[in-house]
């Protein structure tokens, strides 16, 4: 297989694109911590209509989707050779629509007011921004010639995102009174299935096929896994959705999906254990924790298919799933940001470009790992015992976690700007 040329760094997004999405995601993380704190202190109970829905959407859209879109804008050119034309302009349009739409949506979920016009505007901005981004990326991704297991998986993840978004828009319009809301509960379950498993999890799986081997020099994933896992999970999710719509039992399909995720996480843990260069920075620990939590979450949820779980255990299955996704996201952020800062500055010819450990020192990432573990541990106990002080401490650790990340991101931006302003550049 030969290839010469065809790529251009001019088409790669500037560092500001990814940093803006990451800073937006981290700010929503801070908002999440503050909102949960207010909620647990029952300060907001007089005017908040549905705090659970607010928390879920701050987390899934404000935090996770923002991180993932920022990472995709950056990683698609690097991992798949995909060229997104006018990346800065496109990313700005997406981010503005997304931000306005999400704030509107959160306002509607939080308040007891429900003017239909605002539901329509929230659907239009949020759906418009995110669907535009995902269709734009999907269109470019489909056209590449040499697909890897990562790029194929990203296609399924983006289709999963488009389905989750489209159904989300339908649900939002139903709440605004624009549709009759036929099969509302079934579509709600399909919406969650595609958002959690078809988008967030499949994207993590796809990216891991590339980065686990590349970042940590591990043995390759088994061929059957890298070739067929994302396709299998996506197909099973479609089958589950059809079963829900036509009203037949989908328990066996759900169990198979959870089993495949447990298999994937176990193999990833094994690959990390077998890595050839046994360095042990915070990102390895974030990945290990994430995979461990995925196994716990999927195991509890699988048991829940056969017996009725008590409420606390059900909440812990949600918490471990959130812990899985956030752990992997943090692992990626602590790899992407130092790399991009060094790479862009070096490519621009700054001989004194800071090395990766000068951008975000590994010790700072390790501190974040400890805060993250403390946050998850506190919430595990808080959800089990339901003691108010633990809920408050748990909320404070969320604020500390995202606050620390925000500090690290701002430090990296300042380092980048300082190097550009105060060091010499040469042409090469």
């Amino acid at each position: 297989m030969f290839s010469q040329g065809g790529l251009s760094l001019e088409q790669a997004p500037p560092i500001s694109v990814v940093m803006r999405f990451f800073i937006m995601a981290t700010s929503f993380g801070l908002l999440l911590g503050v909102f949960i704190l207010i909620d647990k202190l029952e300060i907001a109970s007089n005017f908040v209509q549905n705090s659970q829905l607010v928390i879920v959407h701050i987390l899934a859209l404000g935090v996770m989707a923002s991180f993932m879109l920022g990472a995709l804008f950056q990683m698609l050119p690097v991992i798949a050779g995909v060229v997104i034309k006018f990346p800065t302009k496109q990313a700005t349009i997406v981010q503005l629509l997304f931000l306005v739409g999400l704030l509107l949506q959160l306002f509607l979920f939080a308040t007891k007011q429900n003017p239909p016009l605002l539901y329509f505007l929230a659907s239009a901005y949020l759906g418009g921004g995110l669907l535009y981004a995902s269709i734009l990326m999907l269109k470019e991704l489909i056209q590449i010639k040499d697909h890897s297991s990562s790029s194929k998986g990203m296609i399924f993840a983006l289709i999963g995102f488009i389905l989750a978004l489209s159904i989300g828009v339908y649900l939002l319009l139903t709440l605004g009174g624009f549709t009759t809301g036929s099969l509302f509960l079934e579509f709600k379950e399909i919406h969650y299935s595609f958002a959690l498993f078809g988008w967030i999890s499949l994207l993590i799986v796809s990216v891991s096929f590339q980065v686990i081997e590349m970042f940590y020099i591990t043995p390759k994933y088994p061929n059957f896994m890298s070739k067929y896992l994302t396709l299998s999970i996506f197909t099973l999710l479609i089958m589950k959705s059809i079963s829900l719509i036509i009203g037949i039992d989908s328990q066996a399909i759900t169990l198979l999906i959870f089993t495949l995720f447990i298999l994937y996480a176990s193999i990833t843990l094994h690959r990390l254990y077998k890595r050839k260069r046994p360095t042990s920075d915070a990102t390895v620990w974030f990945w290990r924790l994430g995979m461990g939590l995925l196994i716990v979450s999927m195991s509890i949820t699988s048991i829940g298919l056969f017996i009725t779980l008590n409420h606390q255990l059900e909440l812990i299955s949600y918490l471990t799933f959130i812990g899985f996704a956030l752990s992997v996201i943090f692992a990626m952020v602590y790899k992407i940001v130092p790399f991009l800062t060094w790479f862009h500055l070096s490519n621009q010819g700054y001989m004194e470009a800071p090395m990766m450990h000068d951008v975000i020192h590994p010790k700072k990432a390790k501190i974040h790992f400890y805060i993250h573990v403390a946050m998850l541990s506190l919430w595990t106990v808080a959800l089990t015992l339901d003691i108010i002080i633990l809920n408050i401490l748990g909320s404070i650790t969320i604020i500390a976690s995202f606050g620390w990340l925000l500090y690290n991101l701002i430090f990296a931006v300042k380092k980048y700007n300082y190097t550009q302003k105060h060091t010499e550049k040469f042409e090469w």
Partner: protein
Amino acid sequence: MLKHLLDAREMVHPEPLQISMTLLQTISNEEYLYMLNYKKPIPLLEVAKEKGFRYLTQQDNEELWHIIITKNSVCNLEELIDV
């Protein structure tokens, strides 16, 4: 042509990119970088293209990527690749 061999198979990302970019900043027309890597180094190839280098990539039967990058505008890259 002087060959600079960089076996990146056991290197942690982004060591191969750091070493390659340092080399490419000083390389002459009579030299070339020959990299072996399990992954196709897309960012490095983007840099090479942007800076006016020529490159050739080829994957062997064991799925190992052979990458040649040079400033030389006339040499036959296919003759230099050892697959």
